[in-house]
């Protein structure tokens, strides 16, 4: 059988950047083809060209053996291409069934909408995929994981035979990931071609057949996954191996700086107690919904608590507003960077100073020289890649945005950093830079609370890990007792 996609010499230039430089790519029927590379390596540009979103400057594309000249999104869809993006792009207010038929609901004889038929047909597809989802439920009432499954089912329903998955497991738990993989395997057996983009290299080995590595807009290599291991892939991507990533220099932690006693916020979490020491990285691990984020938000004063006490350097404190926490030198990196940590439409300069404005204002008047200096320090110290501090932060890569987020807490002189998934949506290179920054900060006596659902990360970085399950503390594990299986069992509510 001929290839589903054959692309040769794809090139795309944006003003000042060659995003794609003569890339070859092919997709066979019945294969899962991984696309990996750091952010900015050209993965999304390649996908957007294939999906008809961008026009290529040069190169040839054949889809199912037919040469394609002009490709529009409608055209791509008609050719059987579909994409499932990490932030689901369906109509969240509509029912699952309606989302299948968007704009083309089946009609009854009288011209009304044939709801029964719509629900039956969409229900059948969901059922076939082994999904327990009622087509009548409203999409936004479903958990994110199920929404994503709906998006996949929709692609199947539309009879797409080339399906792009963009970081599909970013928001999924392990069980959900397994379900996703079983669906992908089923699609593969049905002869569909699947393009799989991921930052999580380890999952690539359990699901993909071939892998194409992109770097700086060029294709490094395409090879079967059996011919390479994770370390090898990493080297192809960044020229650096996995073992270097988590080598944080450990120091004996100092005196306790943050003590939490019986912290409770029903129904999110209850009776959480721990003490974190100066210079320590204290991990918090748990599945989505385990209350990890809620504990951080409560400490930061972003959410009220029902009971419990927080002590800072031995003295009891109560924060009613994030401002109180910032003044007590606590910084917060939210999980949802784009909606909580950075002002997307504003400049790097403003974002670097987000939590520092009261400190550089007198009677409400800003010291603009200090503002500029703060931004310059942030860019220089954290090596933020930006043409200038006037650049709108939206245009920076995820890793550079996250560096600015870290920088703003450092500029407001935070001594304790509450980090919620600090490397989500960040490429491998920036990840390792962020780890290096953590290392430097802890050496300077800054304390880090690290929430991560990514086990290698939380195990690689933390001195101790508190495991949460449905809001209940399941125990604190010290570094010498770290064990993947043990942590996963605790996080699933099974006492170790």
């Amino acid at each position, binding site marked *: 059988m001929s290839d589903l996609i054959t692309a040769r010499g794809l090139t795309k230039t944006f003003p000042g950047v060659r995003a794609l430089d003569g890339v070859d790519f092919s997709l066979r029927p019945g294969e899962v083809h991984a696309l990996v590379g750091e952010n900015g390596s050209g993965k999304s540009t390649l996908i957007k060209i294939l999906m008809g979103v961008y026009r290529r400057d040069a190169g040839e594309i054949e889809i199912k053996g037919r040469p394609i000249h002009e490709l529009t999104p409608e055209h791509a869809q008609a050719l059987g291409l579909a994409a499932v993006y990490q932030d689901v792009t369906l109509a969240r207010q509509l029912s699952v069934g309606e989302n299948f038929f968007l704009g083309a609901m089946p009609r009854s004889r009288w011209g009304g909408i044939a709801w029964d038929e719509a629900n039956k047909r969409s229900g059948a597809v969901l059922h076939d995929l082994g999904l327990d989802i009622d087509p009548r439920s409203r999409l936004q009432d479903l958990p994110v994981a199920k929404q994503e499954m709906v998006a996949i089912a929709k692609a199947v329903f539309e009879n797409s035979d080339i399906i792009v998955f963009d970081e599909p497991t970013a928001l999924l738990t392990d069980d959900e990931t397994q379900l996703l993989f079983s669906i992908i395997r089923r699609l593969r057996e049905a002869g569909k071609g699947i393009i799989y983009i991921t930052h999580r290299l380890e999952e690539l080995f359990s699901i993909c057949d071939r892998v194409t590595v992109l770097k700086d807009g060029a294709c490094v290599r395409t090879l079967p996954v059996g011919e390479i291991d994770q370390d090898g892939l990493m080297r192809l991507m960044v020229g650096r191996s996995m073992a270097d990533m988590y080598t944080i220099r450990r120091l004996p932690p100092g005196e306790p700086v943050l003590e939490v006693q019986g912290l409770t916020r029903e129904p999110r979490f209850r009776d959480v107690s721990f003490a974190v020491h100066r210079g320590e990285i204290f991990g918090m691990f748990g599945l989505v919904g385990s209350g990890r984020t809620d504990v951080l938000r409560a400490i930061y004063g972003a959410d009220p608590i029902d009971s419990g006490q927080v002590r800072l350097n031995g003295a009891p404190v109560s924060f009613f507003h994030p401002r109180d926490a910032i003044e007590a030198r606590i910084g917060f990196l939210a999980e949802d960077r784009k909606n*909580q940590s950075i002002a997307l439409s504003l400049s790097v300069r403003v974002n670097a*100073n987000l939590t520092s*404005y009261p400190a550089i204002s007198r009677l409400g*008047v800003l010291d603009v020289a200090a503002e500029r200096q703060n931004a310059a320090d942030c860019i220089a110290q954290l090596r933020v890649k930006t043409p200038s501090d006037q650049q709108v932060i939206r245009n920076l890569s995820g890793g550079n945005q996250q560096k600015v987020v870290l920088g703003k807490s450092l500029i407001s002189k935070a001594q304790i950093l509450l980090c919620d998934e600090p490397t989500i949506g960040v490429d491998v290179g920036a990840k390792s830079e962020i780890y290096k920054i953590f290392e430097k900060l802890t050496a300077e006596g800054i304390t880090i609370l690290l929430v991560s659902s990514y086990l290698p990360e939380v195990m690689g970085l933390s001195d101790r890990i508190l495991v949460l399950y449905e809001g209940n503390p399941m125990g604190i594990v010290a570094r010498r007792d770290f064990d993947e299986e043990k942590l996963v069992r605790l996080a699933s509510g099974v006492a170790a």
Partner: protein
Amino acid sequence: MPATRRKFTLETSATLGLIIVLLFAFLWATTSAFMTWENLVNLLRQTSINGVIALGMLLVIISAGIDLSVGAVVAIAGIVNALLLKAGVPLIVTVPVSLLVGAAVGLLNGVLIYDFGITPFIASLGTMTMVRGLVMILSGARMIASLPAGFAHLSMSTALGIPTMFLIWMALFAVTATLLRYTQLGRNMFIIGSSVEVARLSGIRLRRNTYAIYSLCSLFAAIGGLLLSSRLSMGVPTAGIGYELDAIAAVVIGGGSLMGAAGSALGAVLGAIIMQTIHNGGTLLGIDPFALQIIIGALILVSVGIDQVRVRRRSTT
């Protein structure tokens, strides 16, 4: 590479400036009445009123809000002032009192929006309707004429040949530009306009900032109301109808976005000038006022459309 914010603002302002120059040149060439001292001073005075209101609206729009009650505030400031003047209260008291009454409407907007979580559009629609009713009750739905000459003098007076009203507008322009560029409150407006959640997690106290933003907007509208009342030399209960839309249009033409976190004082000033010049020029040219409405509506759509195209171009490259 995408343009930086400052460069973007400059581009917008330069384009607007060019449009104004072209408009003036066109009207100079096609009418004999336009480029007369008398007409230009008249134009300046009317633009000053709308321009002041637009500056207040700008603050609200930058913080991703909207205030439909500014027109009603124009009316209530004028009426309260006129009633007090008729009761023999001296100007030095009536002016601050009417400004405070106006600002109180903004404070109420702020309370409705922050404390009751009502969206700005609905909150200010409610207060607009209430204030309009209140104005009618206070004034008995009648104009309050024959105000003391001292009050009318304000709008007639000039300093060094420049209308005082225009100087007031320019002073407020300077205040607004400074506020936006050099104060914590100004930064807060942009941050809130970008995302309320980001603002809160950054330690910005939303309650006081929301109150301040809407109170300032209403204060500016009340100033506009007093200028209008002085110009008409009476308190008019129906004054300011539709001014909220003119103000929004001026801000939007000047590069503001209802999505928040965009806009500049210079842009709002230029936007107001364009709006009023078209009004004025259209009248001089004898264009059917209804046709003029079509032109102004189209202008709003074109300027926002161009902006959208630019934004899209920036985000896809």
